[in-house]
């Protein structure tokens, strides 16, 4: 037992030391950050956890937690455009979706989580840099002051209609974007972290799955993970089935859906990227 532990310590030591030695002799050339990539320094922030939360078997408000983004986060300033997605389509790497008739220098919309994921894989291969959809935590961090913190009233099982009506009122009162057709990058301005068009008229897919979480006994326990439904972020947070391209409401579904579904990517790197020219 003791030997095993020692061995483990040794290997760990070696693993951490060796790269340093290598680096000392052959300094790696930092890969160049793609145009439009922003590096956000790590930090902590107040995050309204996504999902459905319950306490003692009754629905409760999603907790507000102080969480840390442990490493610098590289995120694209702009949402992926129709022109960019069209190139992936032309390479037969992305599913075919309807492209705008006019200018393609607008965000691609009408894309599902699968489409967005296919694009991320394609652009990763093209650039040699791992691109992916952000987690909901990463998106909220990057969205900064534009991340919504809407806590919809929770359902009282004794009178479910109250919360239902209140939610309906809240959703109906949301300001809907004036224009629903995708607009050129920058139309909806930049946030404090330099990201463009956050919470404009294009909602963004995240990689986070829909969770049902119990807070019973003061500890968080995920009772159901549904990765067929992903967290979608924008002017308000919502949850969408991953193959949906065109969000809409109607029938039993009350409330106001996102105007459009698009996405923005983050870049994962083991080494730092070189920014600037």
């Amino acid at each position, binding site marked *: 037992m003791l030997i095993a532990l020692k061995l483990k310590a040794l290997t760990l030591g070696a693993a951490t030391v060796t790269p340093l030695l290598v680096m000392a002799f052959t300094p790696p050339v930092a890969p160049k950050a793609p145009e439009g990539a922003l590096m956000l320094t790590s930090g902590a922030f107040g995050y309204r956890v996504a999902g459905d939360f319950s306490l003692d078997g009754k629905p409760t408000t999603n907790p507000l937690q102080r969480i840390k983004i442990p490493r610098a986060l590289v995120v694209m300033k702009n949402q992926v455009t129709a022109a960019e997605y069209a190139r992936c389509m032309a390479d037969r790497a992305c599913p075919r979706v309807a492209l705008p*008739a006019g200018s393609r220098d607008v965000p691609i919309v009408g894309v599902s989580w699968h489409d967005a994921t296919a694009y991320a894989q394609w652009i990763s291969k093209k650039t040699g840099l791992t691109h992916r959809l952000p987690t909901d935590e990463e998106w909220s961090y990057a969205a900064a002051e534009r991340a919504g913190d809407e806590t919809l009233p929770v359902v009282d099982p004794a009178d479910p209609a109250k919360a239902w009506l209140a939610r309906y009122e809240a959703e*109906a009162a949301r300001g809907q974007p004036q224009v629903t057709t995708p607009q050129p990058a920058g139309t909806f301005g930049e946030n404090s972290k330099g990201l463009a068009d956050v919470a404009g008229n294009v909602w963004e897919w995240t990689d986070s799955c829909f969770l049902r979480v119990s807070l019973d006994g003061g500890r968080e326990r995920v009772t159901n993970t549904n990765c067929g439904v992903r967290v979608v972020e924008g002017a308000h947070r919502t949850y969408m089935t991953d193959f949906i391209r065109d969000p809409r409401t109607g029938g039993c579904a009350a409330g106001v859906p996102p105007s459009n579904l698009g996405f923005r990517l983050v870049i994962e790197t083991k080494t730092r990227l070189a920014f600037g020219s």
Partner: protein
Amino acid sequence: MLTRRTALMGAAVAALVAMAPMALADDLKLPRQHVDLVAPPFVHPHEQATKDGPKIVEFKLTVQEKEVVIDDAGTKMWAMTYNGSMPGPMMVLHEGDYMELTLVNPATNAMPHNIDLHAATGGLGGGALTKVDPGEQAVLRWKATRPGVFIYHCAPEGMIPWHVVSGMHGTVMVLPHVGLKDDAGKPLHYDRIYYVGENDLYVPKDENGKYKTYESIGESYADTTEVMRKLIPSHVVFEGRVGALTGKNAMTAKVGETVMIVHSEANRDSRPHLIGGHGDYVWETGKFNNPPERDLETWFIRGGSAGAALYTFREPGIYAYVNHNLIEAVELGATAHIKVDGKWNEDLMKQISPASPIPADRVGAADPAIVTR
């Protein structure tokens, strides 16, 4: 070509011209009532049962041709409307009353219009006597002899369907003097009334699949007709646009209130359904001399007719009122919402257990692999 119908219509127009235009109907010596109309889903104030004798009820409809937005994506179409809304306003009177209707076609319009009232008898429902070109108006008097809800619509020669699916339709409600009654003859009363007018719309698309827009109403005619002839609407909506009765525009009611919903479709069949509620009393064909059906889940509105449903709300919450061809409700727009305030009734419904993991001892129950023989 002079058909028998055009000859008849020509004669009717000639008769109208011969009449002095200002000689309004004072030959009846009846009390007059003027009604200011309101746009759907609302209905102008009116008595349900009345002690009044027959009277002349004056209404005015002004035709407005205009470009309107019909969904949240900003799709536009050229509409033809009575008083600016599609459908036009509901006009209420009592059995035995006379409607004196002034139809105005302002000079700013491009098209001739008229009105065919299904509740009226003779003269193509009034269509033969009301044709007005831009810059003209006509006055029609007709007697309300049959109680019920009835469509009215524009019926210009050769272009009837186009005018109708462009918005020119509405409803007349003729109430029995004694008010409404159930199948056993017991009086029925409503606390609120809503008029839900359904529109099937046919907006042409370009070669890229985008909805087209047109400089003028005339330019939209040929393409629109081509879409119409395929009988597949691009939109099926209430009150002229997707979302006209949802969100901030949702209808409202309270638990314990009895609500009358009049539903019209001037062109195509529909099947209204109140999700989470019922039709307590439904005049499916809309004619009040027939006893209402009770406890309906979905009722059928024949194209070219209106129906009426009475429901007392028993549970608060959001109700969806839809065309229960759910493809039309969700994909094409035929959804309305009703916000109902009040106290929840646990006897009618209670959530025994919210969504939670399936208990382990139940998981296998339906698994054939563990069934022992």
